[in-house]
């Protein structure tokens, strides 16, 4: 059999690690806490274990921090050979693919609702009969009334048990204001990020740092504007999660996108910090940079799809 030193050269097997198990504890505590908190809120009960959610979350984040830190350290020590680096690359790419599919579920829902459900409820197409139950509801997007509202207005009685009051917003978010601005912001951030990468490969670290910072600033502006738009929608427009299917799809799609922008921004901040303060990344070897940048571009592409299907069409 082989000698051990050979093994070390060909492949790095990390030693035992407490990180994954601790991460599991954090994750499980956090998730269980989230369930308990939500259920208590729904039942209107006080939640004796309300600390589980934030506590678990904080612990989880701390462990992940350690974990990424460890990987970065190993990388610096040169323990990660070419093969392991390729594994990281593959891991990140497939992770992004899984994120794509997560968004796909919501886009699928949006498409199905717009192409089929709303027309049916409004009396059009194969299932137009449904309109008998919601007389007064007209198929349009965005709907100016929810089926429930339309029926109430027409003086009919609702057959399905009323589970909630769904009130369509008097007006909806137009594409031409903040959304358009946000599209421009996010698209330019992808451009700046791309040139940061070019700068890194060309060994121009100063330019890279500036461009990274610029990307981050654009991203943060996006988030801020998005938050402002939400505020506006909730308070001025009356567009809420309870605004029927328009509100549901609008907030879940843009909300999960916003969450991903935040995650991407966090990745970019770490990248920037590593580049600026730790002098990480070389023109040849900069997996961390690359991962963050792929993620950012992915978030950008999702936004473009979103802009088209949620705001524009």
């Amino acid at each position, binding site marked *: 059999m082989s000698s051990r030193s050979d093994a070390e050269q060909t492949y790095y097997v990390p030693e035992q690690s407490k990180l994954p198990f601790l991460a599991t504890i954090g994750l499980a505590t956090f998730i269980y806490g989230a369930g308990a908190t939500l259920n208590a809120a729904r039942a209107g009960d006080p939640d004796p274990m309300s600390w589980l959610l934030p506590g678990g979350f904080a612990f989880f984040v701390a462990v992940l921090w350690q974990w990424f830190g460890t990987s970065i350290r190993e990388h610096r020590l040169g323990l990660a050979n070419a093969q392991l680096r390729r594994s990281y690359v593959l891991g990140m790419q497939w992770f992004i693919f899984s994120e794509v599919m997560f*968004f*796909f579920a919501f886009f699928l829902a949006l498409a199905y609702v717009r192409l089929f459900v709303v027309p049916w409820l409004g009396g059009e197409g194969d299932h137009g009969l449904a309109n008998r139950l919601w007389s007064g509801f007209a198929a349009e997007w965005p709907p100016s009334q929810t089926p429930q509202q339309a029926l109430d207005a027409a003086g009919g009685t609702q057959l399905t048990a009323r589970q*909630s009051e769904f009130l369509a917003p008097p007006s909806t978010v137009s594409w031409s204001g903040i959304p358009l601005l946000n599209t421009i912001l996010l698209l330019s951030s992808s451009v700046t990020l791309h040139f940061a990468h070019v700068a890194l490969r060309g060994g121009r670290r100063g330019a890279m740092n500036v461009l990274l910072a610029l990307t981050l600033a654009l991203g943060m502006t996006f988030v801020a504007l998005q938050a402002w738009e939400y505020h506006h929608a909730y308070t001025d427009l009356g567009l809420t999660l*309870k605004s029927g299917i328009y509100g*549901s799809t609008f907030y879940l799609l843009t909300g999960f996108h916003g969450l991903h922008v935040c995650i991407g921004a966090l990745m970019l901040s770490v990248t920037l910090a590593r580049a600026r303060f730790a002098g990480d990344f070389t023109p040849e070897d900069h997996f961390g940079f690359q991962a963050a940048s792929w993620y950012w571009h992915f978030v950008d592409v999702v936004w473009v799809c979103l802009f088209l299907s949620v705001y524009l069409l």
Partner: protein
Amino acid sequence: MAADHHGPAKGIGRWLFTTNHKDIGTMYLWFSFTMFIVGGLFALVIRTELFQPGLQFVKPEFFNQMTTMHGLVMVFGAIMPAWVGLANWMIPLMIGAPDMALPRMNNWSFWILPFAFAMLVATLFSEAGAPNFGWTFYAPLSTAYAPSSVTFFIFGVHLMGMSSIMGAINVIATIINMRAPGMTYMKMPMFVWTWLITAFLLIAVMPVLAGVVTMMLFDIHFGTSFFSAAGGGDPVLFQHVFWFFGHPEVYIMILPAFGVISEVLPTFARKPLFGYTSMVYATASIAFLSFIVWAHHMFTVGMPIAGELFFMYATMLIAVPTGVKVFNWVTTMFRGSLSFETPMLFAIAFIVLFTIGGFSGIMLAMAPLDFQYHDTYFVVAHFHYVLVQGALFSIYCGVYYWLPKWTGHMYDETLSKAHFWLTFIGVNLAFFPMHFVGLAGMPRRIPDYALQFADFNMLSSIGAYVTGFSQLIFLYVVIRCIRGGRPATDRVWEASHGLEWSVPSPAPYHTFAIPPQVR
């Protein structure tokens, strides 16, 4: 890093903190077996209640919880983790890699599972009771009308999804990146091929499942109306998104099975696998088709006719690549030199019984026929033939096949054959009569039934007990084999071939530190 990380650590820490693919594979397999027992006990509650007409032991609300938990635990707790366990153990050995590509994440994928299932099973003891809306959890029964435990169910599904996605990413990265020099794609063992495609399916559809439960979460807690017509949503939307995940999911459970059978048959037929190339293409075609057939679970929801027809034709097409596989297997046996060790018995039984399950699948695929079959025991018979006699049998097949490699001992041939035959009799007794009661009109998910179904239900229940009892033999055989027994040779089987047989039995803690050269 320590220089001596090459042997297993001592104590419980070995298992909690391990990054070794063999340890993690072992943990997955034990977890899976535990869940199989738990899910099996739930099944026994169901079968006990259905032994005779009338409510005998459990109330309808508890019966529904049993059905739901049985389906969930078996699918997500028993079958899927068993495959990930086998992948962990065998893929590095089969492609000549020292470990999985991302060993720490590997540990994480595993340890999430026990927590997720503990949370899920614990709901049984809560005041509101466990989820009771079937493993397919159709809205609005699972949203507006659900017990409060649904929140934990949703988060449990999120956790399982994370675990599966990370496991699948690991498998893909391992297969793409860690093959020994010379191991081209078209030289990979079939088990590795089928797992590569399975991993792709997992990464593609588990996030969609996460998406649909997230919509549920918002409908329940935050007032959205995805699945409520009053707000402009549609309960059927749930079904579309769910089955977009759900149908590929059933192939996730069966593709690795095809791989195992394709490994085992050549060994005991002493003849190379027939049609390796077409096997690869057939597997890929099945995976591709699996994305465009989902609505065959929804023929009765009132889809427009164009949809019915499309999904009917697409579903029927799956018989073609699956047929290629079956024919290739049979031809592999043809003019071989067959012997009938336990893995081979399971493999042969798999081919026959899975094909019977496939036949009932084709009958279900025909929309007008499905109007009569849908939600009856005919469907239950179908999917137990493909899942129990299919997936589960092939897992047993793989475990017996590789057990000597894992433990270094041969298992007890007589007892293992007893395990096979009793299980074989048990499951057929349990599930074959379900075809009859289903066709005669017995709906699924009911705790009590009309009198004309009584005889066959009693048979089914007896079959279930026989099956359950026989699994104890398996447990005994495995424990004995770990403890000792006739030492296994490196090759174990006379005609086995592949890299996993070139390392010693039991496989050392670290293998292929130097990549082997494959020609």
